[in-house]
């Protein structure tokens, strides 16, 4: 691949110089993985694409701030997550984002069911989750944040984070189970 011709440092430097060639290389290096992250928050492709676009524009505008400290992928991922959360906040009156009641569902999903599910089915169920619960579920399950960290990040209590996560988990499991029955 063409990106193998350059070191990460060269690619970053090219992006800092606003070189479209290096920007494209960086985008294609990370687009697929970050697209997946966005889908987790968006619950659908169109919104995930908007998030991904906005995130990468921020990446290129602020790449001077990367400074070579830590993992470039980690730095991009933080921007993607923050962008996704901000995106949901803007579209869903932030004040009520984490206050919605979620109807609990006690269904459990079997292992074999999970392994055969298609992306469109999973996305359809993720989309059903309230945005606040979706954010918390992704931050905890995918990014590995603790509930205290999530609480600090989202300005909510750790208890709210726990309860939202727990309900989202049960709900998602239940919905996915029903989808494959």
């Amino acid at each position, binding site marked *: 691949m063409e990106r193998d011709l350059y070191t990460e440092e060269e690619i970053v430097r090219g992006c800092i110089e*606003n070189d479209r060639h290096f920007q494209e290389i960086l985008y294609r290096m990370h687009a697929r993985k970050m697209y997946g992250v966005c889908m987790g928050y968006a619950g659908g492709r169109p919104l995930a694409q908007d998030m991904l676009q906005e995130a990468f524009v921020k990446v290129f505008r*602020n790449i001077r701030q990367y400074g070579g400290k830590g993992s470039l992928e980690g730095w991009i991922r933080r921007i993607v997550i923050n962008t996704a959360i901000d995106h949901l906040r803007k579209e869903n009156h*932030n004040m009520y984002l984490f206050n919605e009641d979620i109807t609990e569902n006690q269904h459990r999903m079997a292992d074999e069911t999970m392994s055969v599910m298609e992306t469109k089915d999973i996305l359809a169920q993720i989309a059903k989750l309230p945005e606040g619960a979706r954010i918390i579920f992704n931050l905890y399950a995918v990014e590995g944040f603790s509930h205290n960290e999530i609480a600090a990040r989202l300005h909510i209590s750790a208890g709210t984070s726990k309860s939202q996560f727990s309900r989202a988990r049960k709900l998602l499991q239940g919905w996915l189970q029903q989808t494959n029955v």
Partner: protein
Amino acid sequence: MHFERWYKQWIEGNAESPPEKVWEEIQDSLDIDLVWHQVSGGLDRSAKKRKPLYWVVAASFLLLIGSAGLITYFFPVTFLPTHVTDVQPVLHRTVPDDMPSILGRETALPARGPTPLSLNVRASFPVQGLRPGYPFESAPTGLPYITAATGEAFPVTTPTMDSETGIHPIIKISAKEQTGINLAYVPGSEKPQQSGYFAGISAQLANTWVRNEKTSAGLQSGSLTDTRPSFGNSIGLIAGRTISENLVLHVGFDIISQKRQAYNEYLRGQYVATSLEMDYTKLSFMAGYKLHADLPHWTFFGVYAGYLQNAKSNINGWAEPVSENFTTMDYGVIAGYEYYHSLGGHWQLGTGIFANYGLTNIYTGDGLIPVHLNKTKLLSFQLGISLRYSVF
């Protein structure tokens, strides 16, 4: 399989590439950036041309205040009354009871070394422009002061005695009082009553800042927001009471006090010019302390309360009322400096600079951004001018 682990693997293992249109739109946004960079460069050049105008106004005020103070302080004129009496020899000196009252220049008192300072001397030295029979006696007694033909009264700066004769008072006055003075000098007497009231009008040009996370970040070069200097005006009434020679209480009522903040921000793929315009009515209470016994330099400290009349945001020329997003009241502290120029009689012109610092968060939140994410405070630096009339 553990559900969270399965979900994480599903996210991480995403094999689906985003459609090409995403990259194309990213490129479009970056292209807009380049265009904006060129546009903003042009705007910056225009702004740089305008900025000197603001600085000229501000510098002129400061220069006016500073130069007047410096001239008065460092370049006093030594005025020998004998020169004046050559023009119109009218001289009154009143000496203690054990010495005769003598009229006229030729009737110099005998030298008494430093003791003349203890004499009760009252003298009138009419000079150019002085009206005949100017009623200097009607002026307050007890404090060394000079009155001009216009009726202007001001304290004597450093009264000294002629070292050779010990008779003629040498009084240092500033250059502007050379034409037409009426002088009365009574050392060692009881000081006159200093308390009194004053009232007047004030106007101010303010450099205002609506400080929150966004506008503060906009001061940094790497930020997506570009905070711009903003200016507002104030006009109002003042009143107060002189408690003593060095202390005054001051009340200000700004009928309109404008707070402005302009910035460029990145919204939905493009930079837009945004400005926040708030109009307050403001009431302030200050105590003023005179820095120098003989010069009208005053420092002020106090508090204020502002009542929000209306607020609107202006995004790319589209105005929207946002009063509901801000608290009705704003409270803060004031500190400043003012210099008073005597205009004659009871009138004075004050020029000064003040800083207003809001202590309360004025943002109440909206459906999109809660209060804790956008705490906002007001800050302003004001160049002020005031006209006041004193009643003693």
